[in-house]
């Protein structure tokens, strides 16, 4: 099972200190988080894409390319790549290039984006959101799998004799996850292709999450990619860890209240219903282990949000350090009773070999 952190790179005022970081310091901080995530033993670092304030990551492959150069082992992913408003040709080129530079450590998570005006800014119509996700991804797949593509669709200029360069590293396209909170069409898309399905369950309660993941699993089996419990599922959580539970809740409360979470259900209700956790390491372990319920079984990837909503830089670094202590426990607990047929999330073949080496050497150390 893979564990990691993800973020969307929002620049937010710290409601406690009143300070707002600059875009520059935020960008530098994101690089530092990725580096530290690798150092404390996490598996994945994922970065979002937005094209409006208060977010800084409008150019994710630039940031991830730099991070790739500063890290050696950690998987680099997106949370999410806008499959609706980006030209699939550019996604094919950018991420194939990044994959060469990162030596196979890249996968992508497709999303539709959540701010209305982004669509018209990029010449699209939000009412076409699902149709864009379907058509653009179908083209992206062909660009990575066929050397020469003739193509005509509804949303972009036709292509005659087009070759997306560079070709994917070793001829293997990056693995793709499809992320959605509520759309059965996206679960259906992920299942159709046998791709991964990621549910950002920090915004939705368990029963809703489970229904959508179950749909994905059933349709994964329907389309002949394997049994339902062999689907590739990822979940999220928003974390605020302190050694002591009360401290975690007390310190997190002002950030919660002044963020996108504020104004609705209380912190306590939100924690009870969704994947927002402010607590001690032990509580984090207990809560995350219950997410097998949300995922309708054992799953492959658990990503945590630890930065954003104004949480100061030093605190975020502490969160990543604490997560580094929690994850080995989670690894061990999740490994117990995990059915043998449940696969790991696919990685590039170059990493598969490295993983085995690492597992063998860890085995040797024990």
């Amino acid at each position, binding site marked *: 099972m893979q564990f990691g952190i993800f973020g969307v790179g929002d620049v937010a005022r710290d409601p406690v200190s009143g300070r707002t970081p600059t875009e520059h310091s935020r960008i530098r901080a994101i690089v530092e988080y990725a580096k530290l995530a690798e150092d404390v033993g996490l598996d994945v670092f994922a970065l979002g894409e937005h094209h409006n304030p208060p977010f800084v990551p409008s150019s994710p492959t630039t940031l991830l390319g730099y991070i790739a150069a500063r890290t050696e082992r950690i998987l680099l992913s997106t949370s999410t790549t806008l499959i609706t408003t980006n030209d699939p040709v550019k996604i094919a080129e950018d991420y194939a290039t990044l994959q060469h530079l990162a030596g196979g450590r890249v996968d992508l998570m497709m999303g539709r984006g959540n701010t209305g005006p982004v669509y018209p800014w990029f010449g699209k119509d939000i009412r076409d959101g*699902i*149709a864009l996700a*379907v*058509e653009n991804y*179908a083209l992206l797949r062909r660009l990575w799998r066929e050397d020469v593509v003739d193509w005509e669709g*509804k949303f972009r200029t036709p292509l005659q004799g087009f070759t997306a360069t560079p070709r994917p590293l070793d001829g293997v396209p990056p693995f793709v996850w499809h992320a959605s*909170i*509520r759309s*059965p*069409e996206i*679960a*259906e*898309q992920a*299942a*159709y292709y046998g791709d991964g399905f990621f549910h950002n369950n920090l*915004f*939705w*309660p368990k029963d*809703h999450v489970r*229904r*959508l993941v*179950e*749909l994905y699993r059933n*349709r994964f089996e329907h*389309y002949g990619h394997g049994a339902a419990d062999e689907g590739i599922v990822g979940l999220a959580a928003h974390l605020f860890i302190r050694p002591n539970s009360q401290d975690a809740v007390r310190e997190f409360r002002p950030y919660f209240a002044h963020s996108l*979470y*504020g*104004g*609705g*259900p209380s912190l306590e*209700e*939100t924690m009870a219903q*969704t994947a927002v956790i402010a607590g001690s390491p032990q509580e984090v372990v207990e809560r995350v282990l219950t997410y097998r319920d949300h995922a309708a079984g054992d799953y492959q990837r658990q990503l945590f949000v630890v930065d954003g909503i104004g949480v100061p830089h030093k605190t975020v670094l502490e969160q990543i350090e604490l997560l580094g202590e929690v994850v080995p426990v989670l690894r061990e607990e999740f490994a117990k009773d995990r059915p043998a047929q449940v696969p790991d999330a696919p990685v590039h073949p170059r990493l598969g070999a490295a993983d085995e080496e690492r597992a063998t050497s860890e085995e040797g150390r024990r």
Partner: protein
Amino acid sequence: MKRSLAVVSAGLRLPSSTRMLADRLAEAARRELEGQGAQVDVDAVEVAEHGQDLVGHLTTGYPSDGLRRAFETVTRADGLIAVTPTFTASYSGLFKMFFDCIEDTALVGKPVLIAATGGTGRHSLVLEHALRPMFAYLRAVVVPTAVFAATEEWGSGGSEEPLVRRIGRAAGELAVEVGRRESPEVPDPYSDPVPFERLLDGG
């Protein structure tokens, strides 16, 4: 044949004249439908009971279990009776929030009887300038007679009183519209998704 009526009432006081009007309309509509030979289920939704959950829904994007059940009651009903108090020349904010949060296709083609309460009859056009356009936007079939009950009308008796006659006429119109339709089909997109081949072909 079984028919169902959902009664959404946005009164705030106890006892509530809005609820009183809603009950009168529901009873009259039940009698009319029973006259058609139908067995009638009436399900009441008190919007005020979901007040906190409606705010929660607006901020989180998902309904609480209780609110989800209320939405299902309305979505599956053969006919809807919707009653609001008049607040500041319009429906109450709470009443509007309920219809802001329900799926925007929940009322398509559904017969709806609109009604409102207010201090005096001078507010009665709230039904025509606020409620009817909102339900038209939701593509509901709003019956021609809308019922407004001013406070003073609760003090007048007899079956020939204008309020009583309007209740009877509106309930009759609702029953006719319900009678000419099949019960709504509510597909479950989670158990019955659109096959991907169809999405690839453009939906």
